[in-house]
């Protein structure tokens, strides 16, 4: 929809890659990648998980050096020694995985390395006021004094964005900035992008949400298996064409038809679930083979309610599984009852990044592999199966989970949870950072599970996902269930109205 | 002729007296190596009894020692290992702390810990009036310290001297300084202090000095540190006396062993180095300005 900025036509590229190769040890992941970024232009980089997008971006911003090829800044070849140098040249990267010091406050993180000073001392007052106004500009209501480890994932993303905005970038590179944001927050980000664009900043971003790509980018580069397969104006491509270009095949309908019918037995019954400070009086029934969606705005307490349910947080309320009343005070109890939870925070809570793929995969169901000693062969077998079931693109089987691409980490996390053979599974943001081709595979997988009699709860901030995937959608607002939509009512509009409290199905909740 | 190796195993220099003893051992070794070219010495210092046993094992296994001079870190743990060394035909000289089984060593150069306490106690009894109040500082909790304190207590029994309190100063200047400061806060009247060791006396004196208290008549240290002897010699009223426990006994033991190894002179038996009271009259005889202690 956007037309290419006027400034862009006049000047040449501010930053460009030419024939970049990059290898990690014996594995080559980039092959002759070339890319140009122009001032005032929004450039989207898309591709499957593991295609090499993040690696490309890291090379552009000095976090990685290319094995061969040249990076040019304003037309002249330039080798960034490190990211600091790139930043000094006005090239800023927002990482796919956060780069924040968890013990420090929001404000301290935003100014880290660029503190304002008054003489010898920090000018705390000015930093505070600048932080406040910056966060306001982003419509982010996080407390500048909160420690980053205490704030939610979307807030962390906003802090990252605030940090980048403060750096006065000439070139702003964003690796999946919207993966953890809801559409509302994404809008805020797009507003900022428009502003920066008007100021002549060159912007590169990736996203697996192709509608966004279509909407805000001027130019588009598609990568596949470490190579650039297409580059051109966005306006020339439809979303379907993009998907095809990425995956290399035609994609059928994203959401499969519901094949099996929902059972009659109630698999899980929750009454008055309360997680102090986050959720109050949450009640619902989940039937066998049912896929239940939970929607809501960020901060509506979906995650916390479910974490409470599986014993990760203090909670009260009555829970029945298969009609029997149960007490769950730890995730172990839950898992014994066949109930498992997949976290939305894959880096902090999902995977041990410095352990191998195999070790991560089997961590949750390890006793199964101990007879009494861990059977390496069986673990490897499980990994092979997971790799093929979930299409995990791992260049090597013996690598650390942290070296997988973001989307592939997510797939590994799903595989890990599924290895526990749950009868009831709660999936929080299942497809965060997953490419469109694999998304489809995961949706198929979830349907297959349901067909096998597994009951599923899906928490998702992606509207199309909750609607397309689930049989019924609960909407949460301020820690309470604001209502339920199912069948034909499952419209985006209905959900948003409930989520925002525009429609009262249940008495007004108090936070 | 082949060289004869003499092993010397002593505790490490973790406090003043042990430091002096280390010095004398090193000095004796250097001197005797000059005098007797046919002798070779191995000197090992240990931080705890187990390490000392290891040192002795190493000397036997790799250095083929013909004689061992040992100042046991503690008696009990060293008894067995030293016994097996003696049983293998190695000459054994034990210094200061006796082993807990008799008859193992060929030569015993003994210090007299309960005698040390006793001489100190007798001095107190003789120089304080009935009803006098004293405080005491003890060393690192060990058998040695217990023997000294027992000897001291036995000697003052019946003298009417009241021991207000004894606390561990660990043969350490800083610890005794702290303990003494707190004693001074706690007891408004103290007539004398049994510091039981000159390192501790240094700390005690500094604390008294800083507090500006003049009720304390004197401080009795021990072991004959040169600065203290000098002050006694010069008639310092705060340090009117000292009690010997010479760290140089190790040198005596090494020398006697060397003589035993190189000649047929009879050096076996027990050689007790008693504790002697030093007063301004005889202080000069115990003043060694070159010693580090």
């Amino acid at each position, binding site marked *: 929809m956007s037309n290419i900025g006027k400034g862009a036509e006049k000047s040449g590229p501010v930053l460009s890659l030419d024939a970049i190769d990059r290898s990690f040890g014996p594995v080559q992941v980039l092959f002759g990648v070339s890319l140009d970024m122009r001032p005032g232009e929004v450039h989207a980089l898309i591709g499957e998980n593991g295609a090499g997008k993040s690696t490309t971006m890291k090379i552009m911003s000095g*976090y990685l050096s290319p094995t061969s090829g040249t990076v040019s800044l304003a037309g002249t070849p330039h080798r960034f020694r490190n990211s600091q140098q790139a930043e000094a040249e006005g090239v800023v990267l927002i990482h796919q995985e956060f780069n924040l010091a*968890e*013990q*420090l406050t929001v404000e301290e993180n935003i100014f880290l390395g660029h503190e304002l000073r008054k003489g010898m001392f*920090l000018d705390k007052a000015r930093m505070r006021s600048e932080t406040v106004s910056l966060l306001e500009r982003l419509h982010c209501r996080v407390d500048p004094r909160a420690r980053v480890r*205490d704030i939610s994932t979307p807030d962390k993303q906003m802090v990252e964005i605030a940090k980048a905005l403060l750096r006065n970038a000439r070139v702003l590179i964003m690796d999946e900035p919207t993966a953890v944001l809801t559409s509302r927050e994404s809008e805020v980000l797009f507003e900022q992008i428009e502003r920066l664009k008007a100021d002549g900043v060159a912007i590169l971003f990736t996203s697996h949400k192709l509608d966004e790509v279509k909407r805000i980018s001027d130019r588009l580069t598609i990568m596949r298996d470490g190579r650039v397969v297409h580059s051109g104006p966005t306006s020339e491509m439809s979303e379907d064409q993009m998907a095809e270009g990425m995956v290399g095949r035609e994609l059928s309908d994203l959401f499969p038809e519901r094949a099996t019918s929902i059972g009659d037995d109630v698999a899980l019954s929750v009454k008055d679930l309360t997680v102090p400070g986050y959720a109050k009086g949450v009640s619902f029934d989940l039937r066998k083979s049912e896929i239940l969606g939970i929607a809501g705005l960020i901060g509506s307490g979906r995650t916390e309610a479910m974490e409470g349910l599986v014993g990760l947080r203090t909670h009260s309320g009555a829970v029945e599984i298969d009609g029997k009343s149960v007490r769950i005070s730890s995730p172990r109890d839950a898992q014994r009852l066949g109930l498992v939870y997949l976290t939305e925070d894959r880096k902090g809570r999902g995977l041990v990044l410095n352990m191998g793929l195999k070790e991560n995969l089997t961590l949750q169901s390890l006793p199964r592999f101990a007879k009494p000693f861990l059977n390496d062969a069986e673990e490897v077998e499980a990994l092979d199966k997971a790799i093929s079931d979930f299409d995990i693109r791992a260049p090597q089987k013996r690598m650390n989970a942290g070296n997988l691409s973001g989307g592939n980490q997510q797939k590994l996390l799903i595989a890990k949870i599924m290895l526990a053979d749950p009868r009831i599974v709660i999936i929080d943001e299942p497809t965060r950072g997953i490419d469109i081709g694999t998304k489809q595979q995961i949706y198929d997988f979830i349907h297959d599970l349901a067909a096998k009699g597994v009951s599923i709860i899906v928490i998702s901030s992606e509207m199309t996902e909750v609607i397309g995937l689930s049989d019924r959608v609960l909407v949460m607002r301020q820690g309470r269930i604001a209502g339920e939509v199912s069948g034909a009512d499952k419209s985006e509009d209905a959900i948003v109205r409930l989520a925002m409290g525009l429609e009262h199905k249940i008495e007004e909740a108090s936070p | 002729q082949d060289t004869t190796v003499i092993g010397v195993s002593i505790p490490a220099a973790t406090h003043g007296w042990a430091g002096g003893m280390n010095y004398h051992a090193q000095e004796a070794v250097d001197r005797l190596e000059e005098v007797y070219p046919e002798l070779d010495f191995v000197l090992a210092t240990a931080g705890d009894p187990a390490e000392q046993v290891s040192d002795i094992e190493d000397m036997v296994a790799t250095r083929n020692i013909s004689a061992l001079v040992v100042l046991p870190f503690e008696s009990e743990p060293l008894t067995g290992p030293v016994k097996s060394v003696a049983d293998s035909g190695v000459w054994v000289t034990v210094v200061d702390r006796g082993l807990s089984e008799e008859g193992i060593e060929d030569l015993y150069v003994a210090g007299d810990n309960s005698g040390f306490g006793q001489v100190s106690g007798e001095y107190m009894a003789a120089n304080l009036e009935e009803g006098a109040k004293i405080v005491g500082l003890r060393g690192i909790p060990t058998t040695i310290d217990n023997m000294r304190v027992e000897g001291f207590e036995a000697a003052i029994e019946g003298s009417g001297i009241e021991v207000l309190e004894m606390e*561990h100063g660990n043969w350490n200047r800083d610890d005794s300084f702290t303990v003494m400061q707190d004693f001074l806060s706690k007891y408004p009247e103290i007539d004398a202090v049994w510091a039981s060791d000159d390192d501790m006396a240094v*700390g005690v004196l500094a604390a008294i000095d800083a507090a500006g208290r003049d009720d304390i008549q004197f401080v009795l240290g021990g072991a004959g540190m040169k600065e203290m002897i000098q002050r006694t010699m010069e008639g310092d009223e705060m340090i009117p006396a000292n009690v010997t426990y010479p760290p140089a006994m190790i040198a005596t033991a090494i020398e006697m062993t060397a003589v035993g190894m190189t000649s047929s002179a009879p050096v076996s038996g027990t050689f007790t180095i008693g504790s002697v009271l030093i007063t301004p009259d005889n202080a000069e005889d115990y003043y060694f300005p070159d010693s580090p202690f």
Partner: protein
Amino acid sequence: MSASDTATPAPARRGLDLHALGPLIALLVLVVVGALMNSNFLSYANITNVLARSAFIGIIAVGMTFVITAGGLDLSVGSMAAFIAGLMILVMNWLLPSMGQGVPIILVGMVAALIAGLGAGFLNGFLITNMRIEAFIVTLGTMGIYRSLVTWLADGGTLSLDFGLRQTYRPVYYDGLLGISWPIIVFAIVAIIGEVIMRKTTFGRYCAALGSNDQVARYSSIDVNRVRIMTYILLGLLVGVATIMYVPRLGSASASTGVLWELEAIAAVIIGGTMLKGGFGRVWGTVVGVLILSLIGNILNLTDFVSPYLNGAIQGIIIILAVILQRGKTAEG
């Protein structure tokens, strides 16, 4: 174990923060206990004694707060203090014939101590950052090295400052200003400057940042190695300062000087609320921690317990209790 205390962090707290006040409360309890047990406890003399003797560990612990906040550790400070004290005494004794007695020679001694501290701190920092060896190993190694160097310098015995010089130097420990003795004043100044550096300067903030996540710090244009080395140098310098206050007290140094100071300093830092893993530190907490440790010893000396052998046990129990008291104030640690 209920689910409650294993949960993810609660929202950031605001206003009056009981958790932060934990060590202060523990300190107050100790003061009350001390006052009840012995009437001299609150006397001017006793308070001065306790504060002055806390000064050495205190000054070192302030430096240790920075090292630990930045994710490091230093086990060598006790031996380093002994070594610097020995060196300082040797230097002064050696210069005495040429310089004569007086203030200048003391100043030269002080400068020597500071330079030695700086050098020792730099060595630790260099090995840790540039050679990339675990801080635990480096400082365990240098701990042995300094301890054995001082033993060697003292020939196994004690290094004593010349008697005359001692008289000149003595006031630095025993005298003071307006009835407050110098060690207390210096400790207070060091603590205040430390607190200001920690909270008000980029250096303090960088320490916390790299203790929290040194990758992030590096990506934020912070010269991580330089900051890390600086923490060790600062600590070394402060060990020098502590030594300058220590030597006039007894005028001597030996192999037993400063034994276990490292553990005491680290314990003070942690009791004060700094995290051993790094990422968060507060200097005032450390000061409170040092005072808690000193008071425990003082109270034990002022009261008669069953057996002096058990002092260590009581000390251990009180340390643990003090920390429980501190942690207990909030649901989550």
